[in-house]
């Protein structure tokens, strides 16, 4: 009952005309960003972070959240029609969705993706509504040792489980952690790695790293390597699902949601695993003619399931972000940066200290999902037109927005040089297949984890045994080790 009252109060805040407008602009912008190649939700939010200086916190968080899940809807449109998945999350959609589009069923694929996203997003929002408060209540009991180990768990999964190589993931993570060290140490006030430059005393802004690694690197990479790549676009049919399509989609949406939601809830991040799991499940469960469609004409279940799993994960990922302050993806890391700009540290206290903000944000998720369904179903043709923008102009235009984000944050031309340097680093990382998410997550979570670690060791009066003496923290250590070791054992057994 308490939750329902709080949610209603949230709706009251979220449906003020100004906030509704922010949500609508966010959803539209997010869809555009998802549709356009070369720019993703993390970088879009990062570029717009300077607005946190002026726009009121609830409005801007509603706006950013709109971009965050709007991009998921838009991303599927591109991967179905263009065959170049904008982000890892839509890779699976690209596999079956593109096959469907090639055999003239683009409309059905787009419809099942959009409706599936809506169904999964809404169910996952209900889960967030019901469970986030209790997770927050539980999280209040956690002390620095437990928090530190939770963050270590997030680091481990983001660097070791996702991506191809543990070594390159670890390298990326520690580069991020080192970048997070730059600036004034928050406990002792000692300057670290500033080289006497005043500009570096405040540290490197998350905007610079996100915009540099994703936007600038993308443009440089396109100029260096992708000039001659020609995209082929599939023809779009009428956006319509037959009765049989519905019959095949509905169970797939629900299964996708069930697979995706738990993956979002745990601080383990990433949409790759749930979307692939959902795809594998659908392929396994399909029978007869439907099974034969997989990989040939494209099976609708192969789009419906993974899309639902994707959106469920992304929505449920707000639980660790809001209740523990732990981001598990690039975009949630940047969202955490947005909260920090307001001097708000997401964590268990958020639900008591900023109850209005949190509940308005959750209410806006319901509203946003509905808006996105309308934006993406009848109006999909409009978004597809965005794909007609020629690449050179689009990519050069992105640089203008990158300048706004990077310069607008601190009004320093020095940052623009730094932005270029980070862009070059991003090109190297992409060419040599280093994952970028660990850099961003390491950089934003690193200083928080360091503070928790130092507080924990202080509590232990200088002894590191504190991490082993507390049952929760010990359990987390075991989980971290399991995450590191079990996949390797399974792999070995699979081979042997």
């Amino acid at each position: 009952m308490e939750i329902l009252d709080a949610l209603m109060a949230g709706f009251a805040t979220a449906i003020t005309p100004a906030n509704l407008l922010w949500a609508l602009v966010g959803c539209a912008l997010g869809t555009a960003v998802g549709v356009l190649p070369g720019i993703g939700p993390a970088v879009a939010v990062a570029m717009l972070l300077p607005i946190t200086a002026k726009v009121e916190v609830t409005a801007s968080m509603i706006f950013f959240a709109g971009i965050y899940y709007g991009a998921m809807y838009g991303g599927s449109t591109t991967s179905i029609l263009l065959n170049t998945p904008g982000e890892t999350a839509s890779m699976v959609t690209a596999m079956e969705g593109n096959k469907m589009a090639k055999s003239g069923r683009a409309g059905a694929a787009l419809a099942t993706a959009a409706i599936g996203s809506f169904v999964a997003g809404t169910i996952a929002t209900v889960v967030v509504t019901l469970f986030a408060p209790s997770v927050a209540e539980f999280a209040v009991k956690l002390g620095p040792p437990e928090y530190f180990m939770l963050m270590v768990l997030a680091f481990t999964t983001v660097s070791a489980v996702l991506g191809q190589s543990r070594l390159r993931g670890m390298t990326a993570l520690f580069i991020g952690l080192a970048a997070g060290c730059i600036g004034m140490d928050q406990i002792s006030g000692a300057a670290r790695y500033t080289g006497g430059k005043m500009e570096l005393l405040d540290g490197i802004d998350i905007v610079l790293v996100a915009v540099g690694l994703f936007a600038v690197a993308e443009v440089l990479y396109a100029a260096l390597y992708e000039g001659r790549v020609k995209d082929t676009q599939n023809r779009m049919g009428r956006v319509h699902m037959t009765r049989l399509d519905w019959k095949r989609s509905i169970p797939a949406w629900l299964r996708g949601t069930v697979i995706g939601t738990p993956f979002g809830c745990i601080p383990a991040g990433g949409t790759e695993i749930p979307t692939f799991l959902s795809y594998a499940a659908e392929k396994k469960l399909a029978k007869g003619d439907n099974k034969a469609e997989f990989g040939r004409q494209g099976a609708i279940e192969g789009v419906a399931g993974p899309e639902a799993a994707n959106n469920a994960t992304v929505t449920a990922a707000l639980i660790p972000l809001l209740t523990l302050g732990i981001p598990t993806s690039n975009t949630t890391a940047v969202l955490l940066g947005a909260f920090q700009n307001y001097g708000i540290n997401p964590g268990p206290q958020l639900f008591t200290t900023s109850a209005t903000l949190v509940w308005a944000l959750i209410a806006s998720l319901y509203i946003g999902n509905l808006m996105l369904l309308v934006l993406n179903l009848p109006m999909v043709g409009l978004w597809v037109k965005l794909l007609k923008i020629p690449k050179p102009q689009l990519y050069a235009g992105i640089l203008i927005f990158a300048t706004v984000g990077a310069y607008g944050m601190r009004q320093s031309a020095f940052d623009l040089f730094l932005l270029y340097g980070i862009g070059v680093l991003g090109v190297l990382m992409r060419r040599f297949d280093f994952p970028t998410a660990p850099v961003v997550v390491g950089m934003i979570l690193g200083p928080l984890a360091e503070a928790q670690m130092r507080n924990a060791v202080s509590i232990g009066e200088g002894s590191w045994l504190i991490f082993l003496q507390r049952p929760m923290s010990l359990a987390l250590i075991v989980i971290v080790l399991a995450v590191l070791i079990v996949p390797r054992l399974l792999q070995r057994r699979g081979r042997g």
Partner: protein
Amino acid sequence: MTDPSPPVSSDISDSSPAGTIPGVHLQTAVGAGVLLVAAGLAFGALGIPGDAGYGGVGPNFLPWVCALVLAVCGAWLVWEARSGGYRAMAEPSGGDRADWSAAVWVSAGLLLNAALITTLGFILSCTLCYVLAVQGLRRAAGQPQARAPRTWGVDVITGLCISAPVFWVFTQFLAINLPGLTDTGWL
């Protein structure tokens, strides 16, 4: 669940031709670069006070951890490169050969923008960045009309049409400080 990224690359590679994986020497160089970063971090860590206060962990602890771990990672990367190349590499997207001249155009746009933004103001500086970057990208795409004066003209106007409204929206509506050529707030 052990290997979360199975058959995608082979399935979607038909429209985005993959480049070849960079050679062993380049891989070694990247590993050596990581070692260099580690050395730099260690050198910097020498200058950070280690006073731990009540804790036992001072401000120089994490920098040392980063330096050591990156040293191990760098050495390991060099070893992998020398013994058959990085493991489990995905083929990078795009062509085999880098189009350096295109990258020079884009880089010039970005760096000149950084150097001139405070003197020229946001609109003109960003337009310059746009024009140079789009020129590089057009050449990369092999557009024959890239060098034509008409294309340059169109690009200048497009650049102005993007950067001016962006400047106005951000400075007038969102009150974000962006540098202008004049103090009027419109240029």
